[in-house]
């Protein structure tokens, strides 16, 4: 009888770079991104999928990367916070976060930026409630969300 397969080689493209790695079948996508690839911009704030600090975009869809296994991302194209700005040039959204003091400790910020980026791609002119709903899956303990809302609103058109 052959041994049970507990790991697999996957190919994932992250921010345009292709990575081929052997991963344990049970490894979460966020741990793969952070621990195996050392892309530490995406964060972990809970064990239960509530906080959204690990939010990334997988094949165009916003995903909490602690709720997905790394092997499920085989063949996928993933975007993380590190991929937002090009050549050190901040996106309008990133700049708006700074302008509106939408971050304090900065720990939730990468997830917030990915959620808001996904929103603004789908709807460049969201209404107030749409912005709040888009941020509903991300916890921030520093700001009270008011300034995050203002930043996203400023980056919308």
């Amino acid at each position, binding site marked *: 009888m052959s041994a049970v397969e507990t790991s697999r080689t996957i190919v994932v493209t992250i921010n345009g770079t292709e990575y081929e790695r052997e991963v344990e079948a049970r490894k979460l996508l966020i741990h793969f991104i952070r621990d195996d690839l050392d892309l530490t911009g995406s964060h972990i704030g809970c064990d239960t999928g509530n906080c959204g600090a690990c939010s990334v975009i997988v094949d165009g869809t916003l995903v909490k990367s602690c709720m997905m296994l790394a092997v499920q991302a085989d063949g996928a194209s993933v975007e993380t*916070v590190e991929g937002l700005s090009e050549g050190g040039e901040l996106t309008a959204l990133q700049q708006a976060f700074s302008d509106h003091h939408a971050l*304090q400790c900065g*720990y*939730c910020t990468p997830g917030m930026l990915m959620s808001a980026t996904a929103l603004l791609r789908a709807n460049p002119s969201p209404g107030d409630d749409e912005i709040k709903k888009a941020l509903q899956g991300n916890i921030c303990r520093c700001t009270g969300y008011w*300034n995050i809302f203002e930043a996203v609103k400023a980056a919308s058109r």
Partner: protein
Amino acid sequence: MSDMSTTVAPAPVEVKKGWAGQSVPRKEDKRLVQGEGVFVDDVKRHGMGYVFFVRSPYAHAHITSIDVSQAEAIKGVYGTLTGEEVASLTDPFFQLSTPPGAHLKDFALAVGKVRYVGEAVVAVVAETRELARDASELVEIEYEPLDPVTDARRAQDDGVEILHEDSGSNLMWEGVYEWGDLDAAFAEADKIVKIDELHFHRFNSTPLETDGALVEYNRGVGQWTLYTNNQFPGFAAIMMGPAMRCGLDKLRFVTQDIGGGFGNKITSHPQLVVCCLLARKLNRPIQWTEWRTDFHLSMSHGNERWFHDTEVAVKSDGTLLGFRTKALDDAGAWLRYEPLGGVIWAQVTPGMYRWRNIRLEFTQVATNKAPVSPNRGYSRMQHLWFTERVIDIVAHELGLDPVEVRKRNYIRAEDMPYETPNGCVYDSGDYAQMLDVALGLIGHDGIEARRAEASARGKLLGVGIGSTLDSGTNNFGQSRMINPELQFSGNNEVATVKLDIFGEIVVTLGTTPQGQGHETTAAQVVADILSCSIDDVQVRAGHDSYWNSHAGFSGTYASQFAVTGLSAVKGATEMLAAEIKKLASAIFGGVPVEALELADGGVRIAENPDAFLPFMACGAIINANNAGLPEDLGVTLNCRYVYRPPFQVPDVEKKFGNLTLTYAAQVHVAVVEIDPETGAYEVVDYAAVDDCGKRIHPQIVEGQVMGATAQALGAATHEQFEYDAEGNLLTPNFYDYHVPHALDMPPLKTGSIESPSPFTPLGTKGMGEGGGAGIHAVCAAVQDALRGHGDAIVWDSCNPYHRVWEMLSNPGASRSLVSVVDA
């Protein structure tokens, strides 16, 4: 939320040229919005092992056996650590308390007994996070359960199990505080309002980043390096060094970015000791990142407090004469920072009010719950919630207007600086004006019309005020009121500012910021003194105890950076400015220093600006081109300054003295609407007015106000660490512990007043913890909404919908807690 966050500044600040006072872009932001911050879990080392803690499933039990052999046999498991090993390798942590709390034997892992669900019993280290967790399930621990103590009110009853046999009972610390003349006050009173019981609940700020560390051991020199997010390394060091039998120089603390702290990251020293012992035992770097559930189970719950047998002496017109009460504090299973909460509240003994006769009997007991530790507003929040509840209950029961009662009793602007009955000196402020501003922001003049309008929709509208103080810059001498033997007093903070070889201005801080923007505000202060741009000022990110820029009280906690940190920066920069002039004087052939000025990134002769020496030349001359300079020049261009606030040791006998240097103030007003059918309610309008003296960066200040308000709203409505009768935590993760989300936030209006502190070098006051005002305001608003609908008294600080529904359906339960008697 659009147009829902409005700012007013009723007393416009004088606009002057300079960096301080401007909301410049934060230096920290560029890295943080690009995911380029370095948080503790981002730090990796070759061959590091991941720690997982095996935790107690029992609230109270003897440990009868521990077997780690199966776990250690797994391939990829590097090793384990048990309480027995810890007890042989370390001494118990130093206790701040007098007996009986002094007798606790607190080790980094449970030894012989567990005292709360989630207490760490064994540490397992493996090559991956997942494997360490798997292996932990193979650790065999036998327990012999004991009855748990989960209600502080029963902790000292006969026959109750004792948590710490060495202490002899569950009493940890007690003290009586009394100032003024209580008998005279109660004799003078027209009415005595009695409140049998009030309860401040258990919660904390749940920073999004949990605790963690990467610990390396340098065997050759016997030194540990701890990359950690501990927010008060000075305290961790004095706890850890003696326990680990090493000098403090063997413990190097390094931090860059910290994902929120709020006081909750002060007492991670037990876990850090475990990591240190494992790094030495296993001869490899040890990585520890707390899981969210671990944090909820074991870290820094805020102090749960009861207030019993309160009596308030009042004149018929609402003049408050004094009160007496008994505070019962639930410390949880260990005294990790306690019993300091037993004195910290006294920083704000009378709240914002002029009553002069106060007696408070403070008792702290141990229970089978997670240990309490500082949480934003530490111990003052509990006490100020109590004083605000007293004000609103008195007004409610005597049929007085809570606004009028406050204005009648607030300490007045003309009384400042004001010495409180216990010797604290409130530095400045105008509380009545703040209240007017706050009421104006929510349109209080039209509140009765809004109440009627809500009523027509079937909703009960209520308005409530929370007025609080954010006392900052501790005089650690107050610890002697807990234990006269303690050798702590005063406070200090350090900064160094140097001019490097290419003219770089490099600043190091002793602090451990968690989002407060220290790099930015420090640069503002430096740039103003050196007459350069903030872009020319490099402030090192984070903390390193090997930088020589820290002292015993270094860290970021207790509302003090704007005073201690920035005053240290100011002092060091002024030293550097003087040295630059001294150097230029020598270079310019003896021009008096008084004739020199700093401008445009260099030093020049004021009346001959062409005689200009750029900072780059200054740095190069001293560091690399110094032949021929006078022997006695006395210039290093590397200046270290220790700021020491002007404090005296308090009078321990009388419990009298100034316990903090500054007293920032907040007045919040909340408007709620309750659905009487369900008890569900919504905060429909909210105003927060803050006065923290001179603001170096108004946007950062407002951000702190907003964040503290959001935490208060969460605590007032949902957040609680609730235990069942067996001592199981019912809210061990973000599913059950509901923190506010974007959709939960009410419209917010902020306002500010600037009353510069006369006692601080920059006129600043520490701030950031004033959010407790939100809890008080919501409690008051709910009580106000229920007025005429059963007249329930709000007696608990947390009022989820079901509790409001209970107050509506059975108001008698809370009404039985209060009575008014004619004096």
